[in-house]
C-alpha cells in the first residue's frame, strides 16, 4: 500500500485523539479538530498555489514520513550535541528531539524568577502557566496547510515568557534535533515567545538532523512583542543532511516594539522560511535580514510579510544570497500597508549573486499599499560579481579565486554584521569564511 502523505496523516488522527487520553475532552483538542478539518480540506499545497509557485513539495509522497507523536527514547547525549552549539554564546539552551523537550540535555542559566519562564510548551500547558493561553493567537487567521497540520499534531516546543521591564542578557538557543537514524520522522514543533512590556530578549533557533534517512521539520514560532519590547530573533540553518524544513515565524508587534529577524541559511537541502510580522500599533520597527549561501542542489525559499496596520511604523528588509551549482533560491517579500497606516516607511531589498549557469533565483517583491502618505521602496537584483572590483583586487596580486572569495565574504558581511548578538555574529562569520576559504582579521 502506498498512500499519499495527506491521506496517511488524515488517517492517523483518530488514533492520535485516543492516545491523548484526557486531552481529547479539552478546549485545546477542539482547536486540533478544527485544524484537522482544515487540513483535510486543503491538503498540502501544490505549485498551483501562488504562495508555492516556485516551491515544489511533490517529493513528500515519495518519502515514507512518519508523524512524530510520542516522546522518543533517545541515546543522544550532551557530548553528541556539543558540536551543534556556538562557541562562547553563554546561552540558555532548550533542546528538542523530534519535537519533544529534553530537560536533561538543556541548560537554563538564567534564574527563573519574577515571572521569567524558559521551558517547554507541554510543561506550561500541564501547569497552566501564565501566558500560555496565548498559544495559537498569532496564527488564528492563518490558512496555511502546514500551519493547520502543525495545529493538529504539535506536542511540544519552547515556551518563553519574559516579564515586563526585564532585559534577559543571556540569549536563548532553541536547538531542534530531528533523529532520522531509524525512520523518516515528520516533526511538528510549536514555540511561543512572549516579550512583556519594555522587555528585551535574544533568541537563536537552529535545526539539525541525526542520521541519513529523511526528516521533516514543520515548525511554528509564535512571537508576541508587547509594547516597548525589543526582540532579536535569529534563525540559523546549516545542516547538510536529508532534512526538509518548513518553518513559520509569526510575530505580533505592539506599540513601539522593535523586532530584528535574522535568517541565515548556509546549507539546506530543502528550506522554506516564512517570516511574518504584524505591526499592530504605532511606532513599531521591524528589521528583516537574510542571507543564504547555497550550493549542490540546495533549495531555500524565504517568504516574508510585513503587515503595516497602524501609522508611523518602519520596516526594513535586506536579503542577500549566493547561489552556486544547481542550487535554487526563492525570495518573496510582501509588504502590506493598510489604509490607516499613514507615515509608514517600508524598505525592501533582495540581492543575489549567481555563481553558476545552473543556479537559479526567483525573486518577487509584492507591495500592496492602501495608504497615501507612505514611503516604500523595493529592489531586487541578480547577477555576477562586479568585474571592476575583481580586477582591482587582482591588480594588487590577489588570485582570481581569492578575489572572488573576498568579495563574496564582503557581500555576506553586509547582512551578517547586522546580527545583534556579537558572539553569534562572529561564529557565523567564521563559518562563512571557512566555507569560502578566506582569512579574516
Amino acid at each position, binding site marked *: 500500500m502506498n498512500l499519499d502523505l495527506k491521506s496517511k496523516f488524515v488517517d492517523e488522527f483518530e488514533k492520535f485523539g485516543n492516545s491523548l487520553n484526557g486531552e481529547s475532552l479539552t478546549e485545546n483538542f477542539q482547536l486540533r479538530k478544527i485544524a484537522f478539518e482544515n487540513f483535510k480540506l486543503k491538503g498540502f499545497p501544490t505549485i498551483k498555489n501562488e504562495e508555492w509557485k516556485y516551491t515544489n513539495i511533490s517529493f513528500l509522497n515519495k518519502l515514507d514520513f512518519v508523524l512524530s507523536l510520542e516522546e522518543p527514547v533517545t541515546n543522544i547525549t550532551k557530548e553528541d550535541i556539543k558540536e551543534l552549539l556556538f562557541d562562547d554564546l553563554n546561552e540558555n539552551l532548550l533542546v528538542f528531539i523530534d519535537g519533544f523537550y529534553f530537560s536533561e540535555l538543556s541548560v537554563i542559566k538564567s534564574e527563573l524568577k519574577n515571572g521569567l519562564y524558559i521551558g517547554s510548551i507541554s510543561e506550561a500547558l500541564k501547569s497552566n502557566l501564565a501566558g500560555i493561553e496565548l498559544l495559537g493567537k498569532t496564527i488564528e487567521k492563518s490558512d496555511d496547510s502546514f500551519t493547520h497540520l502543525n495545529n493538529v499534531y504539535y506536542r511540544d516546543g519552547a515556551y518563553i515568557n519574559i516579564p515586563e521591564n526585564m532585559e534577559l542578557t543571556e540569549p536563548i538557543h532553541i536547538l531542534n534535533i530531528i533523529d532520522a537514524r531509524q525512520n523518516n520522522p515528520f516533526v511538528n514543533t510549536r514555540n511561543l515567545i512572549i516579550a512583556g512590556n519594555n522587555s528585551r530578549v535574544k533568541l537563536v533557533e537552529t535545526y539539525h538532523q541525526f542520521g541519513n534517512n529523511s526528516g521533516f521539520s514543520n515548525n511554528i514560532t509564535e512571537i508576541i512583542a508587547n509594547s516597548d519590547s525589543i526582540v532579536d530573533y535569529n534563525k540559523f540553518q546549516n545542516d547538510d543532511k536529508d532534512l526538509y524544513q518548513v518553518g513559520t515565524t509569526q510575530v505580533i508587534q505592539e506599540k513601539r516594539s522593535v523586532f530584528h529577524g535574522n535568517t541565515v541559511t548556509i546549507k539546506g537541502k530543502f528550506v522554506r522560511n516564512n517570516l511574518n510580522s504584524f505591526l499592530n500599533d504605532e511606532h513599531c520597527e521591524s528589521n528583516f535580514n537574510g542571507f543564504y549561501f547555497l550550493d549542490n542542489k540546495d533549495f531555500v525559499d524565504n517568504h516574508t510579510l510585513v503587515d503595516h496596520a497602524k501609522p508611523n511604523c518602519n520596516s526594513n528588509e535586506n536579503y542577500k544570497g549566493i547561489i552556486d551549482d544547481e542550487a535554487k533560491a526563492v525570495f518573496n517579500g510582501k509588504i502590506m500597508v493598510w489604509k490607516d497606516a499613514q507615515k509608514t516607511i517600508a524598505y525592501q531589498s533582495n540581492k543575489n549573486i549567481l555563481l553558476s549557469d545552473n543556479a537559479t533565483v526567483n525573486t518577487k517583491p509584492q507591495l500592496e499599499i492602501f495608504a497615501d502618505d507612505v514611503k516604500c521602496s523595493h529592489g531586487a537584483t541578480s547577477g555576477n560579481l*562586479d568585474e*571592476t*572590483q575583481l*580586477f*582591482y*583586487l*587582482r*591588480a*594588487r*596580486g*590577489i*588570485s*582570481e579565486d*581569492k*578575489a572572488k572569495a*573576498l*568579495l563574496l*565574504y*564582503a*557581500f*555576506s*558581511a*553586509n547582512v551578517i554584521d547586522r546580527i545583534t548578538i556579537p558572539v553569534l555574529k562572529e561564529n557565523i562569520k567564521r563559518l562563512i569564511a571557512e566555507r569560502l576559504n578566506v*582569512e*579574516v*582579521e
Partner: protein
Amino acid sequence: MALLKIENLKVNIGEKNILKGLNLEVNAGEVHAIMGPNGTGKSTLANVLAGLDNYEIEGSVLFEGKNLFDLKAEERAREGIFLAFQYPVEIPGVSNANFMKTALNEIRKYRNLDPLDAMDFLQLMKERAALVEIDSTFLSRSVNEGFSGGEKKRNEIFQMAMLEPKLCVLDETDSGLDIDALKIVSNGVNKLRNEKNAFVIITHYQRLLNYIVPDFVHVMFDGRIVRSGGKDLAYELEEKGYDWIKKELNGK
C-alpha cells in the same frame, strides 16, 4: 635590460583602434611622464599594462625581459607592476587592512617569502600610512568606501608603498586633487623613488610635474607617442597647449 620595453603596441576595442603602434622604454631609476589630451589612449595604455583583458592586442611588451601578455593581472602585480587607478574602486565589506594583508602575502608567496605575521604587518602598515599622511582609523574601514576623491588617491599611493613594486604606473593620480592632497601624494611618490624602481606618470596637466620631477616627458597623441624630451617639454606644453603639437603634426 630595460625594466619595461614596449614595441609597436596596437590595441583595439572592437572596431576601434586606441593605440596605433606605441614604443616606450623605461629603465630602473627613471621617472617618465606621459602627457596628452583626452582620448589619446593614455589610460588604455595603463590598463593594458595592468592586465585588463577586454582588448585585442598586437605588438610586444617585455617586463624584465618577460612577455607581459603571458601573465595574468595578478601575476603582473606579483612580478612588480603596480597601477594607481584613475578611478579607484570601492569595495564595501573588505577592510583596507585585510585587503593589503591578503595582497602582500600573495605577493610574498610568489616570491617564496613567508607571510608577514600580524605584528610585523601592522607595523609596516602604520609606517606606510604615515608616508601619505593617512590616519590609522582608515585601515579598518572598507576599501575606498565613502572616501573623498583625495583619500582614494592617497590610498592608491599607500598601497603602492605597501607592495613596493618595481614599476609604478600612475593614471591621472593628480586629477581631482586639491593642492594639499597633490603635495601629499607627490611627497609619497618622491619618498618611494629609488634607483631600483621606475615610474610612469600619466597626466593631463603639467601641475603634478612641479612636484614629481620627471626624467623624461612623452607626448601622446592619437594612440602614439609623438614627441619625447626632458622635463622642459612639459613646460613648453603648458605654455603652448596641445594645439601646438596638433598643428605641428598636421604640418608634417
